[in-house]
């Protein structure tokens, strides 16, 4: 068993209304100095050892992310 983390983020050129809303709210809450915020998704998967990196990439590219508008990264983490 391994824990795999997949982060999915809107591509830089794609509008990110959620991140913008957060960035816009921070100064109103009294937090200055945050110049940009982008918001994406964070998945934590528990996978059998049978699942190789190639399969994980397929899962990320074909399912967890929408490659038209999103980029993704995968990393295995120690538990």
């Amino acid at each position, binding site marked *: 068993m391994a824990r795999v983390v997949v982060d999915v983020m809107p591509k830089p050129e794609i509008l990110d*209304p*959620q991140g913008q*809303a*957060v960035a816009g*709210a921070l100064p*109103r*809450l009294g937090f200055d100095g945050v110049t940009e915020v982008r*918001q994406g998704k964070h998945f934590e998967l528990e996978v059998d050892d049978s699942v190789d990196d190639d399969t994980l990439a397929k899962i990320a590219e074909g399912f967890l992310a929408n490659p038209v508008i999103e980029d993704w990264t995968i990393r295995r983490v120690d538990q």
Partner: protein
Amino acid sequence: MTARIGVITFPGTLDDVDAARAVRYSGAEAVSLWHGDADLHGVDAVVVPGGFSYGDYLRCGAIARFAPVMTSVIDAAGKGMPVLGICNGFQILCEAGLLPGALVRNDKLHFVCRDQWLRVENNTTAWSTRYDSGAEVLVPLKSGEGSYMAEQSTLDRLEGDGRVVFRYVGENPNGSRGDIAGIASENGRVVGLMPHPEHAIDALTGPSDDGLGMFYSALDALSTVAA
């Protein structure tokens, strides 16, 4: 004196006109409150209406709860002012800490718009005295993140203290813990619920007029205080 009930508008609020209409139907005066204005303009009670404040980005209600008007609402609620949070308003009240727990994504992940039966579990709050205990009322539910969640200890406390005000009857529409549709603050002055009583004030435009009872209840609560 006619009671004056404030209805807050945040950017993205949708059901403020409906809430104001419900206030008028109950015979009170509806006063518009703007999110950026901390002044409550002398209202006797406040409705935090439904919609998508700030697009519901980040989390429902997470951004709205920091609006200047909410600071005043929190303050006034502390002094016993009746506050009703409907749908997004309920989410805002939870985010603001006026009510415990949180509302999360519906278990089936879809937005649900339907006419929903509710059972009145507590008819002693500022917003529910006009109902008989155990009465069943029909009110529209329309939300994507209406599933009530809280730690078990919080749930136990709410149940134990009778602070569950409304409960879903029949199939649970969103995975809410304990079929909870609405809860009250400890003193029963602040009530939040996911279904929309302001859409059930007239048989012409809603499934019933059952929702009016909440607004009449608040008027009763206000006149009792005054007397």
